[in-house]
Protein backbone atom coordinates (compact mmCIF):
# COMPACT_ATOMS: atom_id res chain seq x y z
CA UNK A 1 0.00 0.00 0.00
CA UNK A 2 1.37 3.43 -0.92
CA UNK A 3 1.85 6.18 1.64
CA UNK A 4 -0.90 8.21 -0.03
CA UNK A 5 -3.36 5.36 0.56
CA UNK A 6 -2.25 5.03 4.17
CA UNK A 7 -2.69 8.79 4.67
CA UNK A 8 -6.20 8.57 3.14
CA UNK A 9 -7.15 5.83 5.57
CA UNK A 10 -5.73 7.82 8.50
CA UNK A 11 -7.68 10.87 7.35
CA UNK A 12 -10.82 8.76 7.53
CA UNK A 13 -10.04 8.08 11.20
CA UNK A 14 -8.23 4.72 10.87
CA UNK A 15 -5.92 4.60 13.88
CA UNK A 16 -4.06 1.53 12.61
CA UNK A 17 -3.20 3.42 9.43
CA UNK A 18 -1.87 6.26 11.55
CA UNK A 19 0.16 3.67 13.44
CA UNK A 20 1.72 2.71 10.09
CA UNK A 21 2.56 6.36 9.42
CA UNK A 22 4.11 6.53 12.87
CA UNK A 23 6.34 3.55 12.04
CA UNK A 24 7.43 5.16 8.77
CA UNK A 25 8.39 8.49 10.31
CA UNK A 26 9.17 7.83 13.99
CA UNK A 27 12.93 7.76 13.54
CA UNK A 28 13.03 11.04 11.64
CA UNK A 29 11.00 12.81 14.32
CA UNK A 30 13.03 11.21 17.10
CA UNK A 31 16.44 12.02 15.57
CA UNK A 32 15.54 15.66 15.09
CA UNK A 33 13.89 16.11 18.49
CA UNK A 34 16.60 14.27 20.41
CA UNK A 35 19.54 15.97 18.72
CA UNK A 36 17.98 19.38 19.22
CA UNK A 37 17.57 18.95 22.99
CA UNK A 38 19.78 15.94 23.92
CA UNK A 39 17.36 15.03 26.68
CA UNK A 40 15.38 11.78 26.46
CA UNK A 41 12.30 12.95 28.37
CA UNK A 42 12.13 16.27 26.58
CA UNK A 43 12.60 14.60 23.18
CA UNK A 44 9.86 12.06 23.98
CA UNK A 45 7.48 14.88 24.88
CA UNK A 46 8.26 16.70 21.64
CA UNK A 47 7.89 13.56 19.49
CA UNK A 48 4.61 12.67 21.17
CA UNK A 49 3.35 16.22 20.65
CA UNK A 50 4.31 16.05 16.96
CA UNK A 51 2.40 12.83 16.28
CA UNK A 52 -0.65 13.76 18.34
CA UNK A 53 -0.83 17.13 16.57
CA UNK A 54 -0.51 15.36 13.22
CA UNK A 55 -3.33 12.96 14.13
CA UNK A 56 -5.64 15.71 15.34
CA UNK A 57 -5.07 17.76 12.21
CA UNK A 58 -4.63 15.12 9.54
CA UNK A 59 -8.17 15.86 8.36
CA UNK A 60 -6.97 19.26 7.20
CA UNK A 61 -3.92 17.83 5.39
CA UNK A 62 -4.70 18.66 1.78
CA UNK A 63 -2.31 16.33 0.05
CA UNK A 64 -0.88 19.21 -1.97
CA UNK A 65 2.54 18.27 -0.64
CA UNK A 66 3.97 15.00 0.62
CA UNK A 67 2.84 13.86 4.06
CA UNK A 68 6.49 13.74 5.12
CA UNK A 69 6.95 17.43 4.24
CA UNK A 70 3.93 18.32 6.36
CA UNK A 71 5.17 16.18 9.26
CA UNK A 72 8.70 17.61 9.00
CA UNK A 73 7.21 21.08 9.31
CA UNK A 74 5.29 20.11 12.44
CA UNK A 75 8.47 18.54 13.86
CA UNK A 76 10.54 21.66 13.23
CA UNK A 77 7.92 24.03 14.63
CA UNK A 78 7.17 21.96 17.71
CA UNK A 79 10.87 21.53 18.48
CA UNK A 80 11.79 25.17 18.00
CA UNK A 81 8.73 26.35 19.93
CA UNK A 82 9.70 24.03 22.78
CA UNK A 83 13.23 25.44 22.75
CA UNK A 84 11.91 29.00 22.75
CA UNK A 85 9.79 28.21 25.77
CA UNK A 86 12.60 26.44 27.59
CA UNK A 87 15.44 28.76 28.39
CA UNK A 88 17.36 25.98 30.13
CA UNK A 89 17.46 23.75 27.05
CA UNK A 90 18.08 26.63 24.65
CA UNK A 91 21.04 27.91 26.56
CA UNK A 92 22.76 24.62 27.27
CA UNK A 93 26.43 24.93 26.63
CA UNK A 94 28.18 22.26 24.61
CA UNK A 95 29.84 20.89 27.75
CA UNK A 96 26.55 20.47 29.59
CA UNK A 97 24.95 18.75 26.60
CA UNK A 98 27.98 16.44 26.42
CA UNK A 99 27.41 15.31 29.98
CA UNK A 100 23.70 14.75 29.45
CA UNK A 101 24.13 11.71 27.21
CA UNK A 102 23.82 8.74 29.50
CA UNK A 103 25.87 5.82 28.23
CA UNK A 104 23.55 3.07 29.51
CA UNK A 105 20.40 4.77 28.27
CA UNK A 106 21.97 5.45 24.87
CA UNK A 107 23.13 1.87 24.40
CA UNK A 108 19.82 0.47 25.65
CA UNK A 109 17.79 2.50 23.16
CA UNK A 110 20.26 1.85 20.33
CA UNK A 111 21.08 -1.86 20.54
CA UNK A 112 23.30 -1.69 17.46
CA UNK A 113 25.50 1.05 18.93
CA UNK A 114 28.97 0.51 20.41
CA UNK A 115 30.81 2.44 23.12
CA UNK A 116 32.65 4.33 20.41
CA UNK A 117 29.30 5.56 19.07
CA UNK A 118 28.43 7.00 22.47
CA UNK A 119 31.66 9.00 22.46
CA UNK A 120 31.03 10.20 18.89
CA UNK A 121 27.52 11.25 19.85
CA UNK A 122 28.81 13.07 22.93
CA UNK A 123 31.36 14.96 20.87
CA UNK A 124 28.75 15.78 18.25
CA UNK A 125 26.38 16.97 20.98
CA UNK A 126 29.08 19.21 22.37
CA UNK A 127 29.60 20.76 18.94
CA UNK A 128 25.92 21.13 18.02
CA UNK A 129 25.22 22.64 21.43
CA UNK A 130 27.33 25.64 20.43
CA UNK A 131 25.02 26.57 17.54
CA UNK A 132 21.87 28.64 17.93
CA UNK A 133 18.64 26.63 17.47
CA UNK A 134 17.93 27.72 13.87
CA UNK A 135 21.41 26.86 12.63
CA UNK A 136 21.48 23.64 14.64
CA UNK A 137 18.15 22.60 13.12
CA UNK A 138 19.31 23.36 9.57
CA UNK A 139 22.58 21.48 10.04
CA UNK A 140 20.84 18.43 11.56
CA UNK A 141 18.26 18.30 8.77
CA UNK A 142 20.92 18.59 6.07
CA UNK A 143 23.97 16.78 7.37
CA UNK A 144 22.43 14.05 9.53
CA UNK A 145 18.94 13.52 8.11
CA UNK A 146 20.03 14.14 4.52
CA UNK A 147 17.22 16.50 3.48
CA UNK A 148 17.69 18.70 0.42
CA UNK A 149 17.91 22.49 0.74
CA UNK A 150 14.44 22.74 -0.78
CA UNK A 151 12.96 20.27 1.71
CA UNK A 152 14.57 22.13 4.60
CA UNK A 153 13.23 25.43 3.25
CA UNK A 154 9.70 23.99 3.24
CA UNK A 155 10.07 22.42 6.68
CA UNK A 156 11.45 25.57 8.25
CA UNK A 157 9.30 27.99 6.25
CA UNK A 158 12.41 29.88 5.19
CA UNK A 159 13.79 30.93 1.80
CA UNK A 160 16.31 28.49 0.30
CA UNK A 161 18.97 31.24 0.49
CA UNK A 162 18.47 31.57 4.23
CA UNK A 163 18.75 27.81 4.63
CA UNK A 164 22.00 27.76 2.62
CA UNK A 165 23.40 30.57 4.72
CA UNK A 166 22.45 28.91 8.04
CA UNK A 167 24.02 25.63 6.98
CA UNK A 168 27.15 27.26 5.61
CA UNK A 169 27.67 29.40 8.74
CA UNK A 170 26.79 26.50 11.00
CA UNK A 171 29.27 24.20 9.25
CA UNK A 172 32.00 26.82 9.39
CA UNK A 173 31.51 27.22 13.14
CA UNK A 174 31.42 23.46 13.68
CA UNK A 175 34.61 22.93 11.63
CA UNK A 176 36.38 25.53 13.72
CA UNK A 177 35.19 23.90 16.97
CA UNK A 178 36.01 20.37 15.76
CA UNK A 179 39.52 21.53 14.94
CA UNK A 180 39.95 23.04 18.41
CA UNK A 181 38.58 19.84 19.94
CA UNK A 182 41.10 17.78 17.96
CA UNK A 183 43.98 20.03 19.00
CA UNK A 184 43.07 19.85 22.68
CA UNK A 185 43.29 16.03 22.67
Amino acid at each position, binding site marked *: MSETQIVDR*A*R*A*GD*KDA*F*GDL*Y*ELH*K*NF*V*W*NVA*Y*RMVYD*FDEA*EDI*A*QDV*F*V*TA*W*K*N*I*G*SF*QGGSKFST*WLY*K*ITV*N*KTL*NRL*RGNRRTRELSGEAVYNMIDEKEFLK*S*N*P*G*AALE*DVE*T*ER*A*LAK*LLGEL*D*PEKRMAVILR*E*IMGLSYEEIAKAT*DSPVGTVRSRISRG*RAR*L*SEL*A*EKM*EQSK
Partner: protein
Amino acid sequence: MNIDDFFRKANKLEAPEALRDKVMEEIEKSTPPLREPGWIGKPSKLVTLRRIVAPLAAAAVLFLAIRLIPEQERVEVKSAAKNADELALFVENALNPVFSHDITGGRTGDVDSDNLDSFVENTLESVFNTNPGEVENADAAGQA
Protein backbone atom coordinates in the same frame (compact mmCIF):
# COMPACT_ATOMS: atom_id res chain seq x y z
CA MET B 1 38.33 14.02 13.20
CA ASN B 2 36.82 16.76 11.05
CA ILE B 3 33.17 17.73 11.08
CA ASP B 4 32.26 15.54 8.09
CA ASP B 5 33.65 12.52 9.96
CA PHE B 6 31.32 13.34 12.84
CA PHE B 7 28.36 13.51 10.51
CA ARG B 8 29.37 10.31 8.74
CA LYS B 9 29.74 8.45 12.03
CA ALA B 10 26.54 9.83 13.55
CA ASN B 11 24.10 6.97 13.92
CA LYS B 12 20.52 7.26 12.86
CA LEU B 13 19.00 6.80 16.29
CA GLU B 14 16.07 4.47 16.92
CA ALA B 15 12.97 5.99 18.47
CA PRO B 16 12.36 4.40 21.89
CA GLU B 17 9.80 1.58 21.99
CA ALA B 18 7.86 3.33 24.76
CA LEU B 19 7.19 6.28 22.47
CA ARG B 20 4.78 4.32 20.29
CA ASP B 21 2.70 3.34 23.32
CA LYS B 22 2.58 6.92 24.55
CA VAL B 23 1.56 8.25 21.13
CA MET B 24 -1.07 5.58 20.47
CA GLU B 25 -2.48 5.99 23.97
CA GLU B 26 -3.02 9.71 23.34
CA ILE B 27 -4.55 8.96 19.96
CA GLU B 28 -6.94 6.41 21.46
CA LYS B 29 -8.14 9.09 23.85
CA SER B 30 -8.72 11.70 21.15
CA THR B 31 -11.54 11.83 18.65
CA PRO B 32 -10.86 10.79 15.05
CA PRO B 33 -9.76 13.58 12.73
CA LEU B 34 -12.42 15.28 10.69
CA ARG B 35 -11.99 15.56 6.98
CA GLU B 36 -12.12 19.19 6.05
CA PRO B 37 -13.12 20.36 2.59
CA GLY B 38 -10.21 21.57 0.52
CA TRP B 39 -9.59 25.28 0.71
CA ILE B 40 -8.43 26.70 -2.53
CA GLY B 41 -7.99 30.33 -3.38
CA LYS B 42 -6.30 33.50 -2.32
CA PRO B 43 -6.83 34.97 1.13
CA SER B 44 -9.30 37.83 1.21
CA LYS B 45 -8.03 41.42 1.09
CA LEU B 46 -8.92 41.81 4.75
CA VAL B 47 -6.82 38.79 5.68
CA THR B 48 -3.91 40.07 3.57
CA LEU B 49 -4.19 43.48 5.21
CA ARG B 50 -4.23 41.92 8.66
CA ARG B 51 -1.12 39.93 7.82
CA ILE B 52 0.71 43.11 6.91
CA VAL B 53 -0.63 45.39 9.62
CA ALA B 54 -0.60 42.96 12.54
CA PRO B 55 3.18 42.36 12.72
CA LEU B 56 3.77 46.11 12.34
CA ALA B 57 1.35 46.80 15.19
CA ALA B 58 3.05 44.19 17.36
CA ALA B 59 6.47 45.65 16.58
CA ALA B 60 5.20 49.14 17.46
CA VAL B 61 3.86 47.87 20.78
CA LEU B 62 7.17 46.18 21.52
CA PHE B 63 9.05 49.36 20.61
CA LEU B 64 6.85 51.42 22.94
CA ALA B 65 7.21 48.82 25.68
CA ILE B 66 10.99 48.91 25.33
CA ARG B 67 10.96 52.72 25.49
CA LEU B 68 9.14 52.43 28.81
CA ILE B 69 11.91 50.25 30.25
CA PRO B 70 14.42 52.41 32.14
CA GLU B 71 17.61 53.27 30.29
CA GLN B 72 19.77 51.16 32.60
CA GLU B 73 17.75 47.99 31.91
CA ARG B 74 17.81 48.73 28.20
CA VAL B 75 21.56 48.91 28.29
CA GLU B 76 21.59 45.53 30.03
CA VAL B 77 19.40 44.07 27.32
CA LYS B 78 21.69 45.49 24.66
CA SER B 79 24.81 44.15 26.27
CA ALA B 80 23.15 40.78 26.78
CA ALA B 81 22.49 40.58 23.07
CA LYS B 82 26.08 40.07 22.06
CA ASN B 83 25.42 39.80 18.38
CA ALA B 84 22.72 40.19 15.80
CA ASP B 85 21.59 36.57 16.11
CA GLU B 86 20.98 36.89 19.81
CA LEU B 87 19.17 40.17 19.35
CA ALA B 88 16.99 38.59 16.65
CA LEU B 89 16.24 35.67 18.94
CA PHE B 90 15.40 38.07 21.76
CA VAL B 91 12.88 39.98 19.63
CA GLU B 92 11.54 36.73 18.16
CA ASN B 93 10.92 35.28 21.61
CA ALA B 94 9.43 38.50 22.90
CA LEU B 95 6.96 38.66 20.02
CA ASN B 96 6.19 34.96 19.74
CA PRO B 97 3.32 34.90 22.25
CA VAL B 98 1.54 37.69 20.41
CA PHE B 99 0.94 35.76 17.22
CA SER B 100 -1.54 33.08 16.31
CA HIS B 101 -0.08 29.69 15.42
CA ASP B 102 -1.28 27.37 12.72
CA ILE B 103 -1.89 23.65 13.08
CA THR B 104 1.74 22.84 12.47
CA GLY B 105 2.72 25.12 15.34
CA GLY B 106 4.11 27.68 12.90
CA ARG B 107 3.27 31.35 13.19
CA THR B 108 0.50 32.46 10.87
CA GLY B 109 1.57 36.10 10.77
CA ASP B 110 -1.77 37.07 12.32
CA VAL B 111 -1.91 38.64 15.72
CA ASP B 112 -4.25 36.92 18.14
CA SER B 113 -6.05 39.89 19.70
CA ASP B 114 -6.38 38.12 23.06
CA ASN B 115 -2.69 37.33 23.08
CA LEU B 116 -1.86 40.91 22.09
CA ASP B 117 -4.02 42.29 24.90
CA SER B 118 -2.40 40.10 27.53
CA PHE B 119 1.06 40.77 26.05
CA VAL B 120 0.60 44.54 26.31
CA GLU B 121 -0.96 44.23 29.76
CA ASN B 122 1.81 41.97 31.07
CA THR B 123 4.58 44.04 29.51
CA LEU B 124 3.27 47.32 30.88
CA GLU B 125 2.50 45.75 34.23
CA SER B 126 6.01 44.38 34.56
CA VAL B 127 7.44 47.78 33.63
CA PHE B 128 5.34 49.69 36.15
CA ASN B 129 5.60 47.11 38.91
CA THR B 130 9.34 47.27 38.81
CA ASN B 131 9.34 51.08 38.72
CA PRO B 132 6.53 52.32 40.96
CA GLY B 133 8.36 55.63 41.34
CA GLU B 134 8.02 56.31 37.65
CA VAL B 135 4.28 55.71 37.80
CA GLU B 136 3.95 58.07 40.73
CA ASN B 137 6.04 60.70 38.96
CA ALA B 138 3.98 60.28 35.82
CA ASP B 139 0.78 60.61 37.84
CA ALA B 140 2.05 63.69 39.59
CA ALA B 141 3.13 65.23 36.30
CA GLY B 142 -0.24 64.40 34.79
CA GLN B 143 -2.12 66.01 37.67
CA ALA B 144 0.05 69.08 37.55
